[in-house]
């Protein structure tokens, strides 16, 4: 029987919930297990309620599960909030002094014990030790996990946390047997824990990004924090701009001058950047924009997840121009997609937008080892590539639309670009001939761009019920299919990472045979479903939609989809 345990740690913001989650996640990694840690927090620094839920298994996990086996409640509110998600054999670990076990609830005085080893601030580490004991983790694994998590902090702090985890573990082990037989291993782990934001940052470095300009906005800031922490080791400038307009325009200016450039924001920031997106398109300057989505409109739910910006990303900015839109579904895909975004944006001189979301950015995934690309190809020309640099025209009307791109101040060739419509030499023009020429030239890139698109990937049986989704719901989609098939249904998932240009022919072929098509999206109107209908004429039969800002649970998708299949 496979291991599949969910541990939930709940408390108020400021109680160090995320630290408990991080220590447990490290323990899982070091113990040879797979873990997915999902963070749920409010837009505040203190108080309220936040929780981390870790799904632990001996097999890869790619989605959270609703049933909780162990609830670590750092405050009473957490019991009230999550008590009803407890599995019949679930346990609650709570803070209290001198209180006997009551049914499934076990008590430990975390704060008192913490004071005993160095201070009340260590209460969360005490709780982590106690939780790990209930999960049958050996003490020495707990110590290793704490050392791994606190390793790079000042010495005193690590010692205290080691003492704290030991105190929690010993106290629990003395009073209670482990609640579940989790198969901890002692061999050196081959996996890495990574949050989605870091996957995007590393992908950017693999794409030879050299300028990241941004304005802080949840849930995108983590990407820039990771890049900033790595900047000293790379030819990379990370600049916090005064607003999103500056960030986006700095990105375009830097790319114009010759480096691969990006920004990362959320929907509201992307709204502000739309004019600059058009500037990149009009000047045919390659840029990569990451939109880490959250529910809107306006400020919306700043720390929660959603997929409401798909059609916005495809159509953003006035008038029309070619662009790429990608939506990776996992850290592995994000690492690859970022490289493709930089490569293709450079190659075709069009903007590339990468859609992720809060669930993806803030969750901790277990991944394998990645390989850096051997080399990165750049698509620029210099004087030496030209017959006559003095005659260089930046927007030369070539059949495939991709005019050779020289860089300013690198040679005799003068580079002239403007945001107005223009002549081949880059100077402003309003003539009908020049306008038509440039519109045609920009659009001429289309067919080749389409050729670069990866078709959606299918998982499962070709006929029957098909769950269709995009971006970070990849794991939930696949697990939903597994659940449906376990119940005897013929089911598959079709997952999109490449959204624009829309590979209509490949999509039509992929949809063939699916008897019942059900969209699974975190927006209110099934935006991918609308896109598929518009581009292929094929409609969906139903939709499982979620707009509450929380990630999908596979069981919920499977239940709703199965009901649709029954009534179809």
């Amino acid at each position: 029987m496979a291991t599949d345990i969910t541990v939930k740690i709940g408390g108020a913001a400021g109680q160090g919930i995320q630290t408990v989650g991080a220590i447990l996640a490290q323990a899982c990694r070091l113990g040879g297990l797979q873990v997915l840690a999902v963070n749920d927090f409010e837009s505040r620094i203190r108080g309220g309620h936040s929780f981390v839920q870790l799904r632990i298994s001996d097999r890869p996990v790619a989605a959270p599960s609703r049933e909780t086996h162990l609830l670590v409640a750092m405050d009473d509110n957490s019991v009230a909030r999550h008590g009803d998600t407890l599995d019949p054999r679930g346990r609650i670990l709570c803070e209290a002094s001198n209180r006997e076990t009551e049914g499934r609830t076990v008590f430990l005085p975390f704060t008192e014990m913490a004071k005993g080893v160095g201070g009340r601030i260590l209460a969360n580490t005490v709780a982590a030790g106690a939780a790990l004991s209930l999960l049958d983790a050996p003490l020495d694994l707990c110590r290793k996990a704490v050392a791994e998590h606190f390793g790079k902090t000042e010495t005193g702090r690590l010692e205290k946390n080691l003492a704290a985890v030991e105190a929690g573990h010993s106290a629990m082990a003395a009073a209670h047997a482990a609640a579940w037989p989790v198969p901890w291993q002692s061999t050196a782990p081959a996996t890495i824990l990574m949050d989605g934001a870091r996957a995007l940052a590393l992908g950017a470095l693999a794409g030879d990004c050299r300028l990241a300009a941004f304005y802080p906005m949840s849930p995108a800031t983590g990407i820039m924090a990771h890049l900033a922490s790595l900047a000293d080791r790379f030819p990379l400038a990370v600049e916090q701009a005064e607003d999103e307009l500056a960030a986006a325009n700095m990105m375009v200016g830097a790319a114009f001058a010759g480096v691969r450039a990006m920004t990362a924001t959320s929907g509201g920031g992307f709204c502000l950047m739309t004019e600059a997106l058009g500037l990149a398109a009009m000047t045919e300057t390659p840029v990569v924009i990451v939109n880490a989505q959250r529910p809107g409109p306006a400020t919306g739910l700043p720390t929660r997840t959603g997929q409401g910006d798909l059609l916005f990303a495809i159509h953003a900015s006035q008038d029309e121009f070619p662009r790429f839109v990608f939506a990776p579904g996992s850290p592995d895909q994000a690492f690859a997609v970022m490289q493709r975004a930089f490569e293709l944006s450079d190659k075709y001189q069009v903007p590339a937008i990468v859609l992720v979301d809060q669930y993806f950015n803030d969750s901790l995934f277990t991944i394998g080892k990645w390989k850096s690309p051997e080399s990165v190809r750049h698509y620029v020309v210099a004087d030496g590539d030209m017959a006559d640099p003095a005659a260089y025209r930046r927007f030369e009307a070539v059949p495939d639309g991709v005019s050779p791109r020289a860089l300013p101040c690198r040679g005799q060739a003068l580079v002239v670009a403007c945001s107005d419509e223009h002549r081949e030499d880059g100077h402003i023009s309003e003539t009908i001939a020049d306008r038509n020429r440039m519109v045609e030239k920009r659009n001429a890139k289309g067919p080749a761009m389409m050729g670069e698109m990866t078709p959606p990937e299918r998982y499962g049986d070709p006929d029957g019920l098909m769950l269709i989704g995009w971006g970070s719901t990849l794991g939930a989609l696949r697990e939903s299919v597994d659940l449906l098939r376990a119940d005897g249904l013929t089911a598959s998932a079709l997952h999109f990472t490449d959204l624009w240009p829309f590979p209509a022919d490949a999509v039509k072929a992929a949809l063939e045979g699916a008897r019942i098509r059900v969209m699974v999206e975190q927006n209110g109107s099934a935006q991918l479903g609308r896109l598929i209908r518009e581009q292929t004429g094929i409609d969906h039969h139903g939709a499982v939609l979620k707009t509450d800002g929380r990630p999908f649970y596979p069981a919920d998708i499977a239940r709703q989809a199965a009901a649709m299949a029954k009534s179809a």
Partner: protein
Amino acid sequence: MDTRDRYESDFDSEWCPGCGNFGILEAMKDALASLNIAPHGVLMVSGIGQAAKTPHFLRCNTFHSLHGRALPAATGAKLANRDLTIIVNSGDGDCYGEGGNHFIHAIRRNVDLTLLVHNNGVYGLTKGQASPTSTVGMVTRIQHHGVTSDPFNPLAVALTLGCGFVARGFSGDREHLSHLIQAGIEHRGFSLIDIFQPCVSFNKINTFVWYKDRVERLDPLQERAPDDRQRALTLAEQTGDRLPIGIFYQEEKPTFMDRMPGLAAPPLVDRHYDAGRLQAVLDS
């Protein structure tokens, strides 16, 4: 051959006869010629407006961007290639209105570029609306009862922000202006040159004659840079019948790129991707 000829562009001018932009354009060419900066050695970045069209009328590398966004675009370019000589052509609306926030923060960063603000106290390209520097009471097709808001004082704002080169010129005094531009380009750091100019079509108050009657050169361009910020501020607040022009204040301080230890020479655009360097991070 006059070295100024190499800047001549065959792109037809779009300015009205008598526009102050012509004087500014010629002063720019004078400065570039004096400094012997070749057309391919300079990047001109501009926003949107009649002033922002300036780069099209001389031979140079050009990034004619969006309304108000010349400074961030120029900052991005500077980050990519610290060796670029960048001149920004903007207007009072483009720079002090739409681009106001970027004006403030580019000065804070001390980005090494030369900003020429073609200040004609009106929106010319869009046909006559008031701008942040319009005179109170000026009547326009939009401001029927006259402009009511107090004018933006760019020199005072720049001085208060600690700008290291603050100057004002006049499109009608080409020789003086060309020296200012030359000094601005030579200055290491952000150089602001606010340039009074008439708009013959839409500003009937601040005409060429109006300026001619009021501007006076601060003093012969002295050898020592003016270093008294309080005096400069006092001069900047003279907005009545005597309008000083010249270098109000100059101070050299670390530039934006100087302050980025990891971005010392060579420029980012000349660096290389290294698979091993990234693999070390991926493996950690």
